[in-house]
């Protein structure tokens, strides 16, 4: 194979891998924005929290409870940390966000921004800002797979496919099931859905928890790839917000497709003109804002 095409393809794969994380994160943001009308600035922090919970479970938790030989491995972390992050989100929603219902968007944005700063500051106090590697890739996911044009780390392939599966299941649940219909209807007119006898406040809380759990899940999957650092959330969330602006706020499919697409574009640009790789997303955002301010998939 032509070496140039080869390198484009390999960067495209790595880009898709990043894109899968963008997709998971912007999907959570879109679900939350749809129902709560809140731009969840704490989303990056929840992603970081998910990664740290995995790291702590693997390397520290056993020691804390006096059982140093206990180590919570990757698979358990994949299940438990999103649950814990989701629960944390639920507590935040019930104790704080709920009180802002009906007020201007800006208050929710400020509050969640505050939550993000607190979490980031908290972990910054105890952990290396430059990052700590997560040494817990399970043996079955170590090594590489031959894709024909490149050797791709098995773990990355797993992270990509698993994220895609989670995105698909979420999309399906929202667009094709009864519960999803309730969610879509509540997004349009929560008061009326409540007047039909649905406990909408509970639905709102669970939705927020679910969106946060998706961020936590992305965090766990990112931990073995990037190093776990207090700043990892605020770094990725800037790109994710750009993704959300490009895709259109509140569109589920838009969040997924745009996340993957932009990861891919970022990867390919890295081969064509490396200095532009980290810029290209924002250039696209600027163009989309000029041409279609409500985003590619947004409702006008």
């Amino acid at each position, binding site marked *: 194979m032509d070496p140039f095409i080869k390198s484009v393809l390999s960067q495209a794969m790595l880009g898709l891998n990043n894109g899968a994380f963008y997709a998971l994160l912007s999907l959570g943001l879109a679900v939350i924005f749809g129902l709560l009308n809140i731009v969840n600035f704490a989303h990056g922090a929840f992603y970081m929290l998910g990664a740290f919970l995995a790291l702590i479970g693997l390397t520290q938790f056993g020691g804390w409870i006096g059982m140093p030989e206990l180590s919570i491995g990757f698979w358990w972390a994949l299940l438990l940390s999103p649950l814990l992050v989701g629960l944390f989100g639920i507590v935040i929603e019930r104790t704080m966000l709920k009180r802002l219902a009906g007020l201007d968007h800006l208050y929710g944005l400020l509050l969640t921004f505050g939550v993000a700063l607190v979490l980031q500051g908290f972990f910054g106090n105890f952990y290396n800002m430059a990052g700590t590697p997560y040494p817990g890739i399970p043996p079955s996911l170590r090594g590489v797979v031959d894709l024909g044009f490149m050797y791709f780390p098995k773990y990355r392939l797993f992270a990509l496919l698993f994220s895609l599966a989670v995105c698909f299941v979420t999309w399906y649940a929202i667009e094709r099931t*009864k519960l999803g*219909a*309730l969610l*879509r*209807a509540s*997004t*349009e*007119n929560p*008061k*009326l*859905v*409540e*007047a*039909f*006898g*649905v*406990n*909408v*406040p509970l639905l709102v809380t669970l939705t927020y928890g679910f969106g946060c759990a998706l961020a936590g899940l992305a965090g766990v999957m990112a931990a073995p790839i990037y190093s776990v650092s207090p700043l990892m959330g605020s770094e990725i969330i800037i790109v994710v917000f750009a993704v959300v602006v490009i895709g259109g706020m509140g569109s589920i499919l838009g969040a997924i497709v745009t996340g993957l697409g932009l990861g891919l574009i970022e990867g390919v640009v890295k081969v064509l003109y490396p200095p532009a790789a980290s810029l290209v997303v924002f250039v696209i955002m600027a163009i989309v804002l000029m041409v279609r301010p409500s985003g590619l998939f947004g409702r006008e």
Partner: protein
Amino acid sequence: MLEPRADEILRVSDLHAFYGESHILHGIDLTVYRGEVVTLLGRNGSGRTTTLKAILGLVDRRTGYVSINGRPVISLPTYQIARIGVGYCPEERGIFASLTVEENLLLPPTLRSDGMSLAEIYEMFPNLWERRKSQGSKLSGGEQQMLAIARILRTGAYLLLLDEITEGLAPVIVQALGEVIRKLKDRGYTIVLVEQNFHFAAPLADRHYVIERGRVLDMIPHHELEKNRERLNALLSV
């Protein structure tokens, strides 16, 4: 206080309602019995929609007393009030644009087991069957109105609060809606109908409440309509 009649479905007394600082209802009193069709008549802005909303707790604040089937509901959240057996058809119809007709129809959760079956509903509203796969946003006004009524019949709600169902619809459709109301009455539903169209409401209803500036001005039973026609015209004229 007098012992309430055993067949009392809805009692509202001294109901006050507020949107923010605006005080909209100033002590509404009304009672509806099982199987009745009762209208709330009044001029634009008199507070009829607000009365329905206040019953369901959809206003910013309310005081007074409301009971449904004997249960006081003033301190309950909206969804719990609905679950006692109330079906609400809002003035703006509230069809969910992102849902198909059938999804709209199946959306309200079942409250009690004795609601109409989907087959019975499609029989009563044949054009909804034809359009069941269409997106809610694609319906005509009449179809939207039919859907808004149809979807609260499946749930087992026995008290229906219907707000201006004839507004802006062609005479044939208004006539069909009159037929629907009659059938629902025959099935034993209790119906509160907010209406602007007196000609539509007059033959259907057992009693009429006249609302003016957030108060009940008068209650006129069906058989006294003729006697009160002139006064009513004066009360309802702009």
